[in-house]
């Protein structure tokens, strides 16, 4: 297999696995930039996956081809509402944000499995009939060299994810809203003094993270898992959290980290077809993404500083 063919098989798979992580990590960036730690990303993905699958199974006949797209939007809305639980606990009830994030993780899985048992009478749902399919993107896939590499047999959702990252960057760094959101996470008292509604901004940020986490979970469910069970979302939310930190709480950094995870994952999947990787025992390739992440963080990424007020409840009037 030539170098070009290798790239051609790696890139679509890397994009495929990265998309859910990109969405969810962007959610994490919004929440943590506003000063609310979000360990609950995993639970938000679970909720998104559950809603996406249930909606898809229920409405596949009526909505036809549009089902997966409507399903991910519904998953976004439901997960955003679900994340309100975390928001209320962390912002209004001054809960330890790690604790309420953990509660979100347990709650989403518990609810999802309970309702699955309740509605389908078994531990996992059926396979969806209307998942996302890979396509050749019109026009772009006709570009020589780049077309076959990046735009053939890909999922549109992967490009939506990258687009979202750019939009998130623009919102956070180029708009007054973004400046306010970041200021609330760095120095809430100063922001408050300047007339910014700290609680309001944080609520919005957590709900954005809920929407994006739900989007990530539903995209994962409708491209990769195709059903919902206890084993649908197992750690992807934590990987996204890792991508947030790896990417230094920056939307494009988080996207880069998520792409890197996807790339590393794709290596272990297609290694048997690649000459110099075929002889490497599978185990080394399986753990490669995790080891490389540790080395990268320890080596050349350097010290990452979280937003200053991350994890600290804001209490009006206290110094």
């Amino acid at each position, binding site marked *: 297999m030539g170098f070009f063919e290798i790239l051609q098989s790696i890139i679509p798979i890397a994009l495929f696995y990265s998309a859910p992580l990109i969405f969810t990590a962007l959610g994490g960036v919004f929440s943590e930039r506003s000063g609310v730690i979000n360990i609950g990303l995993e639970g938000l993905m679970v909720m998104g996956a559950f809603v996406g699958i249930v909606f898809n199974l229920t409405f596949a006949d009526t909505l036809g081809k549009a089902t997966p797209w409507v399903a991910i939007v519904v998953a976004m809305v439901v997960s955003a509402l679900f994340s309100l639980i975390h928001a209320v*606990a962390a912002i209004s*009830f001054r809960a330890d944000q790690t*604790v309420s994030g*953990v*509660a979100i993780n347990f709650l989403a899985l518990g609810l999802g*499995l309970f309702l699955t048992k309740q509605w389908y009478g078994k531990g996992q749902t059926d396979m969806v009939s209307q998942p996302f399919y890979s396509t050749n993107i019109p026009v772009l896939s006709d570009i020589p060299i780049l077309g076959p590499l990046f735009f053939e047999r890909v999922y549109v959702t992967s490009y939506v994810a990258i687009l979202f990252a750019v939009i998130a960057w623009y919102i956070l760094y180029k708009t007054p809203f973004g400046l306010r959101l970041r200021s609330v996470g760095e120095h809430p008292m100063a922001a408050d003094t300047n007339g910014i509604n700290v609680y309001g901004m944080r609520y919005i940020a957590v709900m954005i993270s809920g929407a994006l986490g739900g989007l990530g979970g539903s995209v994962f469910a409708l491209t990769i898992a195709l059903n919902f069970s206890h084993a649908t979302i197992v*750690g992807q939310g934590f990987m996204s959290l890792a991508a947030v*930190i790896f990417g230094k709480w920056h939307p494009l950094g988080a996207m880069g980290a998520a792409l890197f995870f996807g790339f590393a994952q794709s290596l272990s999947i297609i290694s048997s077809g690649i000459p110099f990787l075929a002889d490497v025992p599978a185990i080394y390739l399986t753990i490669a993404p*995790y080891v490389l992440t540790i080395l990268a*963080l320890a080596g050349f990424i350097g010290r990452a500083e979280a937003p200053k007020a991350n994890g600290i409840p804001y209490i009006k009037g206290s110094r």
Partner: protein
Amino acid sequence: MFSNRMFNLLVPIISVLLGLIAGAIIMLSFGYNPIDGYIALWNGAFGSPYFFGETIRQVTPYILTGLAIAFAFKTGLFNIGAEGQVIVGWLAAVWIGTTVDAPMFIHLPLALIAAAVAGGLWGFIPGLLKAKLGVHEVIITIMMNYIALYVSNGIIRDVLTDSKDSTDTIKESAALSANWIMELTSYSRLHYGIIVALAAAVFMWFLLEKTTTGYELRSVGLNKHASEYAGMSVSKNIILAMVISGGFAGLAGAMEGLGTFGYMPTHSAFTNIGFDGIAVALLGGNNAFGVILAALLFGVLKIGALNMPTVAGVPSELVEIVIALIIFFVGSSYIIRWALLRLKKEGN
């Protein structure tokens, strides 16, 4: 007025009650009888010697992972890596248990120590990176979880066995299980491990509350800069905390390897013993004695829940929701305190 001590006791109790009430409301709204449901739960945990044995068996690793996470919390660290430390501890215990030949009084302690050392090593790496390079321990421990999972699967398949999905059974001399306990509890999988877990809790209490080392660990957790200024080595204490935390979690793995199962299967997903430990530690207020009580509650809920579908027709997943809500209420203790004070004021 309530004293702080009272609050610290009342908040978890009220949280548990609120969680159970919420569970009852959910059961009602789905057309189940909550009283039948909770009776089935209670009987499923205590109704027969077998169920009781299984409950205590489940409590054992929960105590240890709860301690692991609580210990790290005390030094201001969040050890999400207990999961991976459980897995390497399990592997190390079974490795020693299957390959070494020695009388029990050497073999069993050796296997337990191996598990603690393996878990400690798995905690040492994130501790070192945190202390020396300032890398966030959460992300490193998450990565270490995956590495533990895949590496231990690889070792079971390629080193300990010839491409099998599970190791051999450990030798009798390394087993925590005992026939008389099994007979007493109608052949549940209860084993001596509970003694190890309780001893570990006493050890944690003693270390943190009664020794200089513990004072330093807690001090670093409360205020790094003040501790540094007072002449303590922050990085040494961070590493130590992660190693001891990992050691506890490693022992939890040994409980599974030497007690419950007696072997180690390859895992396609995480065991969740470590992740559940986070909830145990939080409910237990990161205190050794509280962790024991919280682990007991979680063991009762988890094992009791298995009885709910057959007896009351309630899906056992309900318990996961109850546990989540309990954690939520514990986390929101501020609002419970506020409500209690309100009630108190109106009463006067």
